[in-house]
């Protein structure tokens, strides 16, 4: 099911490439010892290096390098043992040095690829061109003073990973799936928190359109979009703009554009003529970044299990469907929660409870898995009670509701409410005899062929026993009595 834009001249294909800027999780900044923590008082997390005072020099943070390498593994990419830092020169209010230290010609991570999965189950590979390390800029605040822009340098110098994809995506949906996958990978690895709203992950989108089989046409770059939904909207709007212009005999100019969420349109930010000439050159304050193969191997060996591998393991180890496994591994916290429930228990049952009852509660209450009112251990204990026939599945749902409300452990609830399942055949037998006696007419009808009434008798017995009877035993005994 290909995504196409149907115009007056036929169908158009959309070509999308993404540049994701992901803020590295580290204590200190990339080239200075100031804190990289988000959300402090203005200009408190700024060293003289970040404010580009005369004579200040950059010294690289080892952890940021390691985080980039870990992310490189997450992208199944080539790790470059030798890389370099370059200066990207331009003047801007929140760029104190007058240049950004980045990696232009020799990035730390080279080619890789990731798999994305679409709603219809299609799996597609998206190429990764490179990942490089660079400095984040400060923040310009435009609404504090009438005639001035205020500059806060707290973010200036925080490490960023720029992850560049190949132009391999062909629909807004694919772009969305790609971003979700990148976010899942960096969150799994703990290399970026992936919060697009707070700006710790941002995307630049390159969009062009073409007729099927054509070479690539001119692309436009949409800058700094801060949600997956907006990325998808922006692509759709921009692609339609291209088609419209082409079909009216126009040409697309290569330019940088802004996506206006409110107006639902894109508009020119910088045309090609105004394009910066960044004058990249190797930063003479920094020597080549050389990492030892043994260190890279060590990082690889201690790498956390990534979503794809975890999904495969969940399928094999717990007998889950690919779909269910994908749902569970989408976020590492959910996957971990599931495993705490499932370990040593029936995996499919655990999956059903987590994605069914638990997700329903979380959705209703608007909670994340982290704030779940029911802990994994408690759900596990509930499954154990089902497993050892202390309660049946129906009662279990009642117990679960109680767990959500009270936070009590299931065994305590079963005890408090007297919900223990009745497995005493004598007790059940007596109830069955009473029910059959009171409904002699229906027994007759059943015996003359109205099989469906079996369910009615089950229902009556369970009702009489307040749902606590073991359904298997009820079934067996009832069959015995009715066959007499």
């Amino acid at each position, binding site marked *: 099911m290909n995504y196409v834009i149907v115009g007056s001249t036929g169908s158009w294909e959309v070509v999308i490439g993404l540049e994701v800027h992901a803020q590295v999780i580290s204590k200190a900044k990339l080239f200075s010892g100031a804190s990289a923590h988000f959300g402090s008082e203005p200009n408190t997390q700024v060293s003289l290096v970040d404010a580009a005072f005369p004579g200040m020099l950059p010294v690289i943070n080892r952890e940021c390098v390691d985080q980039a390498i870990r992310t490189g593994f997450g992208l199944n990419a080539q790790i470059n043992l030798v890389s370099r830092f370059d200066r990207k020169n331009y003047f801007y209010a929140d760029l104190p040095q007058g240049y950004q230290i980045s990696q232009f010609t020799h990035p730390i991570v080279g080619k890789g690829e990731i798999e994305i999965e679409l709603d219809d189950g299609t799996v597609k590979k998206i190429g990764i061109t490179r990942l490089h390390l660079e400095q984040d800029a400060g923040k310009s605040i435009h609404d504090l003073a*009438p005639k001035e822009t205020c500059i806060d340098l707290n973010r200036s110098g925080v490490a960023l990973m720029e992850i560049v994809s190949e132009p391999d995506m062909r629909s807004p949906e694919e772009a969305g799936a790609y971003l979700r996958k990148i976010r899942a990978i960096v969150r799994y690895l703990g290399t970026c928190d992936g919060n697009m709203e707070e700006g710790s992950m941002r995307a630049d989108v390159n969009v062009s359109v073409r007729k099927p089989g054509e070479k690539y046409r001119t692309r436009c770059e949409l800058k700094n979009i801060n949600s997956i939904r907006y990325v998808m909207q922006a692509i759709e709007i921009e692609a339609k703009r291209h088609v419209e212009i082409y079909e009216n005999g126009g040409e697309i100019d290569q330019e940088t554009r802004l996506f206006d969420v409110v107006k639902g349109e894109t508009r020119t930010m910088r045309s090609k003529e105004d394009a910066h000439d960044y004058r990249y050159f190797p930063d003479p304050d920094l020597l*080549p970044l050389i990492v030892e193969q043994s260190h890279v191997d060590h990082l690889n060996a201690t790498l956390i299990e990534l979503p794809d591998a975890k999904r495969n393991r969940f399928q094999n180890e717990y007998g889950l469907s690919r779909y269910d496994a994908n749902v569970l591994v989408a976020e590492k916290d959910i996957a971990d929660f599931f495993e705490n429930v499932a370990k040593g228990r029936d995996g499919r049952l655990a999956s059903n409870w987590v994605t069914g009852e638990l997700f329903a509660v979380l959705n209703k209450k608007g909670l994340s898995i982290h704030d779940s009112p029911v802990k994994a251990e408690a759900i596990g204990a509930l499954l154990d009670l089902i497993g050892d026939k202390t309660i049946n599945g129906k009662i279990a749902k009642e117990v679960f509701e109680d767990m959500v409300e009270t936070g009590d452990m299931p065994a305590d609830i079963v005890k408090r409410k007297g919900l223990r399942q009745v497995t005493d055949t004598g007790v059940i037998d007596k109830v069955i005899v009473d029910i059959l006696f009171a409904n002699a007419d229906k027994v007759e009808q059943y015996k003359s062929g109205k099989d469906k009434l079996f369910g009615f008798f089950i229902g009556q017995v369970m009702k009489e026993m307040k749902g606590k009877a073991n359904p298997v035993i009820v079934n067996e005994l009832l069959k015995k009595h009715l066959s007499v």
Partner: protein
Amino acid sequence: MTDKQKDDALDIKIVQRVAKLSALAVKENELAIYAQDLGGIIHWVEQLNELDVSTVEPMVGAENAKLRMREDKVTDGNCREAVLSNAPERIADFYAVPKVVE
């Protein structure tokens, strides 16, 4: 100005473009002087074209050295007054510049 200097002089448009990239206000009457000076220097450094450097690796700085890395520790910052004390203009705890329109 000699004929040679005139020949070497850079195109004024290039000087303007380079001045813009450098964020330097250059007065009209200085443009021709820079065009001549820069043209002369550029012509002079073109003597490097005599050399065949096709097989030479570029040298950035210190040779045979690699970047030393520091530990991920917060050792700096929290010095707002030091950072702001030299600012020509500040508003509260921010640096201030003429309004930037995006």
